[in-house]
């Protein structure tokens, strides 16, 4: 049957279009978000949800930033990939740094010298020779030895939009000067290094350097660029090309952990000079966006609007997969590549993915090799075994997905502002009040409802995995928990009411004035999900007959309030910088108060006994004596209850079968070089999981035209009628 004219012309347009569509998509899955063939390379596909703010090692301080620069910059030390508890090992250093103690007159003291006698400690770091930086235009020199790209002309700049537009690249050997240069950068007032204030109290001459730099900057006006090579830092001495020393005030054993963080990575002066050219700054080509390091990877493309691409550093030095790990690592296949040369993955493509739906779906379709686990996808992926262990659901197992879990070295808590007249104060009455609240706030329920069980209730300051944490009956918070059977059990609400009465508020009413007790929780509420959370808090306080007023503010107002010490109750969290209990207890150290002093002690807690013990504990070496002091500290804060110890989150991560050598390491940030992709398996699975279904579309099209046909006939009839 010949088609009527109108549908015929439509068909003439549509049929070829469909045909083109069908042929164009002939190879590979249609819905792959990558160019054809990308999956068959040794490329890791992952995502980032928010663009990293800083990639300058002096400024970066969040995990999403470390995740990138950790692969590029190499501080002298690193954490062993497999060993637990976390242990440091040399990275660019030959061995772990040696420490010697000096007295006031710079005379060397024996290692067991009393702390009072130690005026300085000195870390000596020896570097491996022959380590080279990634190829970079900043190192390129012409035949006379002058740097080719350090004074770019406008003509040269015109053809440059990104780093790979430079014609030539060069490298040079890593020296101790580069490390010294970076420490000086930490003092630079314009870089706002988050650890500058801390280092002022430790590194000898650091404060003075910062002051001099500030003075010179003010004198020369804001636009000037200072060459840090003209300035000396007393505490950092370069002995020779592969040997430098850092001198600190007093004893600070935690310094070795800082040496494993990117803050102390090497920075070639050439790079800083290169990137300070105004022409490049105007093109967003800066050190804060394009790192220059010695690590296994180099940043190839940095388009924070879409993707960040890392590629292998061709000059990466010899490094090998660890040959030993924790017991059980061999069985779980983590030692298959023992002794092989690193890295295994050639390229890493991090795509911007802000919405969790597409992210999760793409992971299930095989387009991301690994995925975190948001609470919305949790039920789909994970179930709990009868023993309470998390395991994957059957569908996930069928896809060959594996699950890794680890308790994060973080603590989330509800803090009380100790300066507040109602809730604060260290007398017995107020401590009782806070203890009562500690019992009433049922964090077990919180974890079930809001975290899908991905956390463990905190018993004190120290999370598991950090020295000082105790399991079993000795490790519980006796003011909130009882040890029943073989597990801690939260005290009954009756016990809380009892304590509240002792605090002077029987049934939540002030025994003196007869007025009900009203407390205020300052909170930054953002999404609709927070609503249920707020209701939950209110219910918890209601159990004691206490009215909770929620003061929801935005982030800025909240920060302002905290800085002024105006909040009453607040929630806060802390991610450890390094695996040492000092990094947690300092959050309650008196001289570290937030109000007025701007420290991290948000509760403004100040107890002389605690401060004295803390000062002793922080410089001790791990051992039974330190453990004892830590337990005393725990006892003090459990009794005084400046915080309601909330929970330590557990991180859950999923990955596909073709992604290997994954072991959660919450301290290390250079794990990428150990990991491995098997592309063949990935390609096969992606194809299998993504079969396009076209028929509903075709059915829809047919229905649409079917609906037109009677109308067409009606129209023809009318035409004929009017023509007659």
């Amino acid at each position: 049957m010949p088609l009527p004219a109108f549908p015929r012309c439509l068909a003439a347009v549509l049929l070829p279009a469909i045909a083109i569509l069908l042929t164009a998509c002939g190879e590979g899955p249609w819905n792959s978000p990558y160019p054809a063939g990308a999956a068959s390379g040794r490329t890791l596909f992952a995502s980032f949800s928010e663009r990293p703010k800083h990639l300058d090692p002096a400024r970066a301080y969040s995990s999403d930033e470390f995740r990138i620069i950790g692969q590029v910059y190499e501080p002298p030390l690193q954490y062993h990939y497999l060993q637990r508890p976390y242990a440091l090992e040399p990275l660019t250093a030959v061995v772990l740094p040696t420490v010697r103690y000096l007295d006031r007159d710079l005379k060397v003291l024996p290692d067991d010298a009393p702390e009072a006698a130690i005026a300085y400690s000195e870390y000596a770091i020896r570097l491996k020779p022959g380590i080279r930086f990634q190829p970079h235009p900043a190192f390129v020199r012409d035949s006379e030895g002058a740097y080719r790209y350090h004074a770019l002309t406008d003509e040269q700049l015109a053809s440059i939009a990104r780093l790979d537009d430079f014609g030539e690249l060069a490298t040079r050997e890593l020296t101790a000067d580069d490390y010294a240069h970076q420490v000086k950068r930490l003092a630079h007032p314009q870089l706002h290094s988050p650890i500058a204030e801390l280092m002022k109290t430790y590194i000898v001459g650091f404060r003075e350097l910062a002051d001099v730099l500030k003075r010179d900057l003010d004198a020369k006006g804001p636009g000037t660029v200072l060459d840090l090579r003209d300035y000396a830092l007393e505490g950092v001495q370069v002995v020779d090309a592969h040997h430098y020393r850092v001198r600190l005030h007093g004893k600070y054993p935690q310094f070795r952990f800082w040496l494993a963080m990117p803050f102390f990575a090497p920075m070639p002066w050439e790079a800083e000079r290169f990137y300070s050219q105004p022409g490049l700054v105007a093109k967003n080509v800066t050190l804060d966006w394009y790192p220059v390091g010695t690590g296994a990877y180099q940043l190839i493309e940095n388009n924070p609007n879409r993707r960040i691409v890392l590629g292998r550093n061709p000059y990466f030095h010899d490094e090998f997969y660890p040959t030993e790990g924790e017991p059980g690592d061999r069985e779980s296949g983590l030692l298959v590549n023992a002794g092989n040369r690193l890295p295994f993955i050639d390229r890493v493509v991090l795509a911007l993915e802000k919405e969790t739906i597409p992210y999760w779906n793409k992971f299930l379709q095989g387009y991301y090799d690994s995925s975190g686990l948001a609470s919305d996808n949790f039920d789909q992926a994970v179930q709990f075994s009868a023993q309470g262990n998390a395991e994957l659901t059957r569908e996930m197992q069928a896809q060959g997905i594996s699950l890794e879990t680890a308790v994060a070295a973080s603590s989330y808590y509800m803090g009380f502002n100790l300066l507040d007249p109602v809730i604060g104060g260290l007398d017995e009455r107020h401590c009782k009040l806070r203890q009562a609240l500690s019992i009433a706030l049922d964090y077990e329920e919180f974890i079930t409802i809001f975290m899908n069980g991905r956390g463990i209730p905190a018993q004190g300051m120290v999370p598991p995995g950090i020295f000082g944490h105790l399991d079993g009956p000795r490790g519980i918070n006796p003011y909130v928990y009882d040890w029943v059977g073989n597990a801690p059990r939260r005290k009954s609400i009756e016990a809380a009411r009892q304590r509240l009465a002792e605090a002077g508020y029987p049934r939540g009413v002030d025994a003196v004035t007869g007025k009900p007790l009203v407390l205020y929780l300052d909170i930054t509420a953002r999404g609709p999900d927070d609503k249920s959370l707020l209701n939950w808090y209110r219910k918890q306080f209601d159990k004691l007959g206490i009215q909770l007023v929620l003061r929801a503010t935005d982030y800025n107002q909240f920060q302002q309030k905290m800085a002024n010490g105006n909040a009453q109750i607040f929630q806060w969290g802390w991610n450890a910088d390094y695996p040492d209990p000092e990094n947690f207890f300092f959050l309650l150290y008196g001289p570290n108060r937030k109000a007025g002093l701007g420290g991290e002690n948000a509760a403004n807690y100040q107890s002389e006994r605690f401060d004295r013990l803390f000062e002793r504990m922080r410089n001790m070496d791990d051992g039974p004596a330190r453990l004892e002091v830590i337990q005393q500290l725990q006892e003090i804060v459990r009794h005084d209850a400046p915080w309601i110890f909330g929970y330590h989150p557990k991180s859950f991560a999923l990955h596909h079968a073709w992604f290997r050598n994954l072991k959660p390491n919450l301290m290390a940030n250079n794990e990428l070089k150990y990991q491995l992709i098997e592309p063949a398996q990935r390609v096969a699975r992606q194809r299998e999981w993504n079969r396009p279904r076209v028929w509903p579309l075709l059915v829809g099209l047919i229905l649409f035209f079917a609906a037109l046909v009677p109308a067409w006939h009606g129209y023809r009839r009318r035409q004929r009628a009017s023509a007659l």
Partner: protein
Amino acid sequence: MIPTLFWTDGLFFLVLVMAGALVLVMRRREHFRRPWRTVSRSTPAMVSLVVIAVYLAVGIVDSVHFFPRADAAGSAAGANEPISLLDHWLGGLRTRTEKTYSEPFAAYAYAKEHLPTADGGQRWDYPRLTYGGAHLVDPESERVRDIAVTGVRGAGQGGLMWLIAAAGIAALIARSRREPIGRVVHRVARGQTPLPWRAMLLTLLLLCVGGGAIAEWSAHYHVFGTDKVGADVLYQTIKSIRTGLLIGTLTTFVTLPLALVLGLAAGYFRGWADDLIQYLYTTLNSIPHVLLIAAAILLTQVYMAKHEEAFASLALRADLRLLFLCLILGLTNWTGLCRLLRAETLKLRELEYVQAARALGVRDHGILLRHILPNVFHIVLISVVLDFSGLVLAEAVLSYINIGVDPTTESWGNMINSARLELAREPPVWWSLAAAFVFMFTLVLAANLFADAVRDALDPRRAD
């Protein structure tokens, strides 16, 4: 029980009173009655009106707030948060929360849990819900039957209510027409009344039967399931009605005065006043509206943070944010109407009767009030009804960018915003999204149909 009046409550009632007054005024003028008669004869418009009336009733009941008395157990939590009459009536829906998601009409939770078994061990299975289908002994065998029986019972009750209402309406028509009631019923049934009573009553029947069934079901089930923290979705979506209505109506408090005063002034006085007003609205118009709204919403947050003793309760904060959102939406919305009014006034002022009035020495405000305003009023009406649905839709989008209503306010936008992640679950959690969709779609569709009819009737260019 201590009654309290929120800002939005007060303004909402003011809008209703003003609308009522307007209806009374217009009833007395023939040239207004004629187009409205056309509207009242249009079946879609009147059916929509019935639907809108039902939404409006819910919104009104939800706008009467009071502090509940603290109950004897000494529970303090509720005492500083006011609730509405609707909350009071739907008390069961509000308080019967499960632990987490459950499907519509489910008796079991959406996610598996550890359940203690009889022999002291644990098994990993779907737990029974605390409230949903809790009266059933064996849900597998009884549930479907129970749902059907309850549904029919509820529908029957709804039908009964409808019969009473329909009889009342028939009696009223009969009285005003002075006809025997039997004939009236006959004519309504055959669709021979000037007003489309048959269609309206059928719509009402549908709403009564559906509402009755849902009411009966909701006593024992979660008709639209529960959300992430186990709150009843039906309750949320009913509560969202008020938010939607407020956003659609309260904006008129800004748009109407601004557009009327400035539009008429610009068109009538021309000269520098015209230039200034045109400048004003072009400037405002040229700023992308989303950004203007974002700035204004952040402004309210700062204001509230600086005066927090005045906003002790969450409800009060949420209310103020809603009010500000309405006002700022009004501020971005008046320019279109203003431009139309200006153009119309420019035309009108040249007409003979206006010129004559001016020649006779009638003062400007007299001319504006008596001659120009009544003649541009149809434009105002059309624009108000046309804007309504757009504003309801805009709320959802703004909530997505986090610059809409307060996160604690129930609104369709917030429901969609939190539910969009749920579709990624397996099996997908579709019910929050579906409930928000159905309720929002119904309101917007009704509003659109009604607005179409109003425009067709009032716009002289479209009148036949």
